[in-house]
């Protein structure tokens, strides 16, 4: 491959690039979906190609192609330079990447059991058994179980001398039961909604999810939700389960700390961020109980890798310390604007996309409470479980989230089941109302984080535990 990467870098620099890199990627993906006892979609996909990034007179260009052939590499490298020259026609600031990065190394996701080597029969047996458990419950209209795994082989070479090879393996799955009543329909999912519990791991991750063992409970809860009481409209104490806390971190912290977003580079799509640079080091983002860390080195977490797509090694960065906002997620270009070095978060969604600043594993650090003690300590409120809906404004301030299921809390115990539960708030006020974080900590894997134009889906992780928040508006939909 080195002959091909050298060829691309030579072609780009000969055409006028002051910096160039090439990523060659190959993706293999298997998806299995079972619905109501029948295979609903089984696919075995592969996609390979390369992308060349070129910097010419301080402006970026990128071109990608699926045809990994010498002549096509020449064409694409020259095209990336031509695109960069066009960018220079509407330029105000020169891109400065800071000090050169020369990384040479490799990284391979530790895998105990290759998910591609496990037979389709074995995977189907698990999914069909989970499906059967759900359909055994009267009132369930649709039972769905899914498995997904992928392997990405990627090679990055840059004109600064980086040469990094990585092999990233991901595995995940989940189940979902849909119950339909006269008035409405209700879903319950495990371990998370939208099939969102993935890890950088092998088949062992899927096997330990125990989808079969949770099928019946999910189905029963979906049916029970049909006759549950609607979420009251109130200002009250809420406890979020670990997966919903992870979603809360993702939307109101993870995206808000992306430095490209802060600098307006995402303004046309999902917006900017309220966490402007003047707030760094002093702004109270949350209460003393709130500690957030971005860590791309946690074993098995979905946002774990060896090097980002600029060749910067994976690392751990403190984001919020005892409630005070400390750091951003950065790239070479954006970190240089702050006089710093990148903390290694640039990742692309495949060979055909440019790297963007993406969350790694952005974690709410565990607290000291046990969930039982936290519940016992809560006189009145609502416990929210498993995300169903999410929306946040274009500065990451006003959010509204809904969960599949919720429970009244009465005198330290879970009471009646609540359906269509929503809560809303303003980010720093909400996190400042957090007075407890539990110690039982899970890393959640989200494989569908959207950003950029053209759109890219990143695979990110969030370590989170149940957490309590005071004086929160709940029950928005009438």
């Amino acid at each position, binding site marked *: 491959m080195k002959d091909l990467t050298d060829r691309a870098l030579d072609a780009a620099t000969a055409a006028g690039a002051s910096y160039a890199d090439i990523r060659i990627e190959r993706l293999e993906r298997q998806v299995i979906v079972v619905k109501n006892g029948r295979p609903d979609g089984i696919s075995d996909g592969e996609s390979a190609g390369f992308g060349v990034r070129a910097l010419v007179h301080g402006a970026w260009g990128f071109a990608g192609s699926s045809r990994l052939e010498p002549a096509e590499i020449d064409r694409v490298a020259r095209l990336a330079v031509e695109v960069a020259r066009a960018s220079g026609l509407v330029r105000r600031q020169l891109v400065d990447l800071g000090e050169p990065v020369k990384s040479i190394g490799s990284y391979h996701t530790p895998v105990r059991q290759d998910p591609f080597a496990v037979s389709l029969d074995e995977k189907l047996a698990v999914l069909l058994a989970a499906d059967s458990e759900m359909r055994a419950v009267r009132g369930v209209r*649709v039972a769905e179980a899914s498995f997904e795994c992928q392997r990405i082989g990627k090679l990055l070479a840059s004109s600064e001398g980086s040469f990094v090879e990585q092999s990233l393996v991901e595995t995940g799955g989940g189940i979902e039961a849909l119950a339909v009543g006269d008035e409405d329909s209700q879903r319950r999912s495990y371990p998370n909604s939208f099939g969102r519990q993935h890890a950088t791991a092998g088949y062992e991750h899927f096997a330990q999810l125990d989808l079969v063992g949770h099928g019946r409970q999910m189905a029963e809860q979906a049916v029970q939700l049909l006759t549950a009481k609607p979420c009251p409209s109130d200002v009250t104490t809420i406890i979020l389960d670990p997966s919903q806390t992870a979603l809360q971190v993702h939307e109101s912290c993870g995206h808000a700390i992306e430095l490209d977003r802060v600098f307006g580079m995402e303004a046309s799509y999902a917006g900017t961020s309220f966490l402007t640079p003047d707030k760094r080091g002093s702004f109270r983002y949350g209460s003393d109980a709130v500690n957030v860390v971005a860590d791309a080195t946690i074993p098995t977490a979905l946002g774990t890798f060896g090097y980002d797509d600029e060749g910067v090694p994976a690392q751990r960065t403190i984001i919020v310390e005892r409630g005070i906002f400390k750091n951003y997620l950065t790239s070479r270009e954006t970190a240089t604007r702050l006089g710093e070095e990148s903390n290694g978060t640039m990742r692309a969604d495949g060979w055909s996309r440019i790297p963007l600043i993406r969350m790694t594993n952005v974690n709410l650090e565990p607290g000291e409470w046990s969930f039982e003690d936290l519940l016992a300590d809560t006189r009145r409120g609502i416990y929210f479980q498993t995300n169903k809906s999410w929306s946040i404004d274009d500065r990451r301030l006003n959010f509204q989230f809904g969960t599949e299921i919720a429970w009244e809390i009465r005198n330290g115990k879970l009471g009646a089941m609540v359906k269509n539960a929503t809560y809303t708030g303003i980010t720093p006020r909400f996190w400042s109302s957090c007075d407890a974080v539990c110690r039982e900590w899970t890393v959640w894997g989200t494989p569908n984080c959207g950003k950029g134009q053209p759109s890219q889906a990143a695979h990110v992780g969030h370590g989170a535990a149940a957490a309590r928040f005071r004086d929160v508006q709940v029950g928005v939909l009438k």
Partner: protein
Amino acid sequence: MLGAEWFRWVAERVLARSRADQTEVLVIAKDSALTRFANSAIHQNVVERDAEVRVRAVLGRQVGVATTNDLSEESLDRVVERAWAVARRQPENPDFPGLPDPSEVAPSNGFRSETAECSPERRAQMVKPICALAVEQDLESSGALATVSTEIGVANSRGVFVHDRFSHANVMTVVMGADGSGYAERTSQSIDAIDIEGVAREAVDRAARGRGPKEIPPGEYPVVLEEYAVGELLSFLAYMGFGALAYQEGHSFLRGKLGQRVMDERISIWDDGRDPRGLPMGFDFEGLPRQRVDIIREGTAVGLVYDSQTAAREGKRSTGHALPAPNTFGPFPMHLVMATGDTRKEELAPGIDRGLWVTRLHYVNVLQSDRAALTGMTRDGTFLIERGEVTYPVKSMRFTQSISEAWSDLGALGRELMLISSWGGGVLVPAMRLNRFALTGRTEE
């Protein structure tokens, strides 16, 4: 572009090599480019070429799909084998009706060579006036100009063979000041039809009028929704309930309501993949002709879109709305059209004593699909209407609302359609006035 002859070669090779009872080959080849700008300068600029071959193998009622973007002969042979191997190792799907028989498909005339041939330099020159006009007004612009040309071919062992090419260009911009912002967007088959100066003026004007926004309390207000906002809501309605699978599974907001009034009688919605005002595409991803389907006629739910599998369940014929296999979402309408009314856009605000003018919506998401209930924010141009006049800008607000209920209390419909870019295609919608819309929160720091 790979061309019809190349696709014929691929199709013949795949179908000849396949050991399956039935075989389908779908090729989606795409040349796309996007010039993105922020802070009134180009900061990202990308070009991509890709082509995917997707093979569906059928053994009795066992179905397997394999894909590749390696177009070599060896790879094509391998993907045929992989699809067969996936099908062979799985249980039967008794719901699967078999691959469809061929139906006549007319060319869609959805391709414009000027869009496909748009150079990086031309894209940059088109972005330039948006950036320049914003800076001139002491504002900053961001946005993207995209050109996409797509080639799609579908063939199967029962005789389906269709191939066509399509193009579209889209420009969108958000122009921002210290405390206000404005939006504009245009979509067309032809890059030549994009009025870039008009886009720049529209967004800059909104941003300039948006300076110094005030806060107003949440509550139910009459609203004027511009076409951008209506297009987004219509796309979500389609997602929540216009496909047959959502209806059959019981989570569509139209469940049990076919033949019943679900919206104001002035609202009619249909899907028409052949409408030349949109982004036409004559066939679906099973190679069947896209039919015009009436979904809401004069406020009454009258139809749904189908693919082969959902149609077979009800003993019907597909309406030509299949997505690529394997498709767990079901059929989807990608070319929705909404009937116009008789009100000029500038006459939508008169008649509102106190309400809001909403340019576009942001981060919309589903709360309850069976009620068509959504939440999201207003963005880039929210203004107060007092005594029929737009008076001053207001800060973005959150809405939480059942859309079918809101569209049952319609004030007026605009008399002009605008093409709004949407999932997989475009929707043709007018602006509208609603008598009640629930604004449930405001943003603040």
